[in-house]
């Protein structure tokens, strides 16, 4: 390998990049747009659940229960109805997600010291939201129920009783449970993967289509120099993209950064190497620029988006899919990004992920070089 030839390719590619102002602007603005779009749209937070109340009992006891819901930030009581049809209509029209129905004999059962029932109706069409809402409702009702029981016991026994076990939940790393903190670090990784594929997927296919590749192959230039030189040029753009994406994440979304900046720079570089080599490999495999573009976007966007665990938790995927995610490089960078951003964990925890990123980059580099050699023959 000759450094002189490598440098020639590198500079030539930089000229291509800077000459094509529109593509360059797109490459640099796209991470900002994607982050803003996905960062805000992909909110997984469930609060202010629109709720209707159907109070058949109409007693002070039932109103006391209703206050538990109106007083919570998780529920937003939209109004009171006096029949099931109204609830059904409201759910059908997506005006509410939940309804609380307090039966006629609610206070009577309570007064008799019997078990009183409350009906919670939830729109299950979005199962994820539904199960979260269900959790909130159960928590509210159970808490209220314990409070009622201890009140009764206190009244009977005359002494203060407290519930035997008081579970105090504390959420670590993302204490406010804000989904942006969870989404944005992973999103940065996914965006880098897509940008890398977009940048490189045309680079070899274009040279074949234009006929310039034939010229290159008649010179002493070697496939390894073409692949490396091109990668280095697009790496510069990739790094700029990473910087832009990080800036948006930290400044606009105010995502906490707790870990080592060095660790993050190293892993972003390793990830970019692999992703850029992948784009070059795809470009060398395709016959036309269009084909290269489609293959590049599909093969990087889909796995990065669905199988990286950046939103969709890998633990809940079917076993087969879980195994497949192990060969998706985005999975490892997402783990690293979340670890570095939110948990502040270091090399000792993330070394395996780093090794995978190194391996991936090396393997894809070899594949891309080999593909170039095959085309050559």
């Amino acid at each position, binding site marked *: 390998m000759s450094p002189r030839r490598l440098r*020639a390719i590198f500079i*030539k590619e930089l000229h*291509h990049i800077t*000459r094509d102002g529109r593509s360059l602007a797109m490459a640099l603005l796209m991470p900002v747009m994607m982050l803003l779009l996905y960062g805000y749209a992909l909110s997984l937070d469930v609060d202010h659940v629109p709720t209707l109340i159907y109070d058949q009992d109409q007693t002070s006891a039932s109103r006391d229960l209703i206050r538990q819901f109106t007083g919570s930030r998780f529920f937003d009581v939209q109004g009171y109805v006096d029949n099931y049809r109204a609830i059904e209509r409201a759910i059908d029209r997506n005006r509410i997600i939940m309804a609380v129905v307090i039966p006629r004999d609610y206070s009577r059962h309570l007064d008799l010291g019997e078990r009183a029932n409350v009906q919670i109706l939830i729109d299950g069409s979005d199962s994820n939201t539904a199960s979260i809402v269900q959790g909130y409702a159960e928590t509210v009702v159970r808490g209220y129920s314990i409070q009622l029981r201890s009140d009764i016991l206190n009244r009977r026994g005359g002494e203060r009783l407290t519930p035997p076990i008081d579970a105090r939940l504390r959420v670590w790393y993302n204490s406010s449970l804000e989904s942006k903190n969870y989404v944005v670090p992973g999103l940065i990784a996914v965006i880098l993967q897509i940008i890398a594929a977009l940048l490189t997927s045309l680079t070899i296919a274009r040279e074949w289509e234009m006929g310039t590749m*034939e*010229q290159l192959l008649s010179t*002493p230039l070697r496939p390894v120099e073409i692949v490396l030189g091109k990668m280095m040029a697009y790496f510069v753009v990739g790094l700029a993209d990473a910087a832009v994406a990080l800036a948006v994440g930290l400044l606009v979304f105010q995502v906490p950064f707790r870990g080592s900046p060095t660790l993050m720079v190293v892993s972003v570089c390793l990830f970019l190497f692999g992703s850029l080599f992948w784009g070059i490999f795809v470009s060398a495999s395709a016959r036309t620029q269009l084909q290269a573009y489609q293959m590049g976007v599909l093969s990087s966007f889909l796995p990065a988006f669905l199988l990286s665990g950046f939103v969709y938790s890998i633990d809940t995927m079917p076993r087969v899919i879980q195994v497949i995610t192990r060969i998706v490089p985005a999975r490892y960078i997402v783990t690293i990004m979340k670890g570095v951003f939110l948990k502040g964990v270091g090399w000792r925890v993330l070394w395996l992920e780093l090794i995978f990123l190194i391996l991936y980059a090396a393997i894809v580099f070899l594949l891309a070089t080999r593909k170039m050699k095959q085309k050559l023959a």
Partner: protein
Amino acid sequence: MPREKVEQAVSPASSFAVEIHDLVKTFGVFVAVDHVSLQVAKGEIFGFLGPNGAGKSTTIRMLCGLLTPASGAASVNGFDVATQPEEIRRSIGYMSQKFSLYDDLTVEENIDFFTGIYGVPQRLRAGRKTYVLEMAGLTERRRAATRELSGGWKQRLALGCAILHDPPVLFLDEPTSGVDPIARGQFWSLIHDLSRTGHTIFVSTHYMDEAEYCHRLALMYRGKVIALGTPQALKAGLTSHTLLQLDSDQPLETMRALEAVAGVLDVAVFGSGLHVTVDDPGAAMARIRQALGAHSIAIRRLERIDPSMEDVFVAMIETEERRAA
């Protein structure tokens, strides 16, 4: 121009710049190059003539190491095409049929790029660049985007980029296609300059008039070399026949009338007149005048002419077709 050699592999002693023995290339069942053998001496301008699809480009690509031959052997500059592609690439310049510089780069950036990939040493770079810019007449426009150049400039720049490393052998694949006649003339004078400084030039073309500029020619037709020699020798090969130029007012009627004339071997439309091939010019000319007079066709011109390369080529192809039939 600086004559220092640039990072070139030392070539084994061979009197020929290009040697081809029984070279074959097939694409599926199609035989693109069919047992071609020829030699090109050092410093020669060797022309590769033939219609499109004759196998010229395929042969050149095999010589440049861009395609692998199906069978046969070839060497360039003493290096074997099959086993020493790296050495070959260092010692050749190649200009492909399609313009293959980077349109979005400037003239200078293209030159710098090829200087880099050909590994021209630092101390020679400035000199080579100046030489190529001057040769192509682009010194003034060195900072212009390549896409803004006209066909003739582009072609001279492409030639310049192919000789930055001063290669002993140059392969030019239809370098003048799509370029205006004046630019073609300038281009051929550049090729002659290169030949005078010891470069071997292997050039393909389908312009018959350009054949006259070559030292030696191979006529290629349907994958085969059907004739090989100097332009003079190839024309002399047609001495068994004589070519007559015949201009008349009614070329179509003339052609029909000539069909019945004994001693007329072939009639071909050539520009506004006809080229008539005959075996015995004296007798044939008399018979032609007689026949055309009978048809009351006025003859504006009837005389012996020297065959052009195109006549040679047409005759060769006809012989070849007759043999195949």
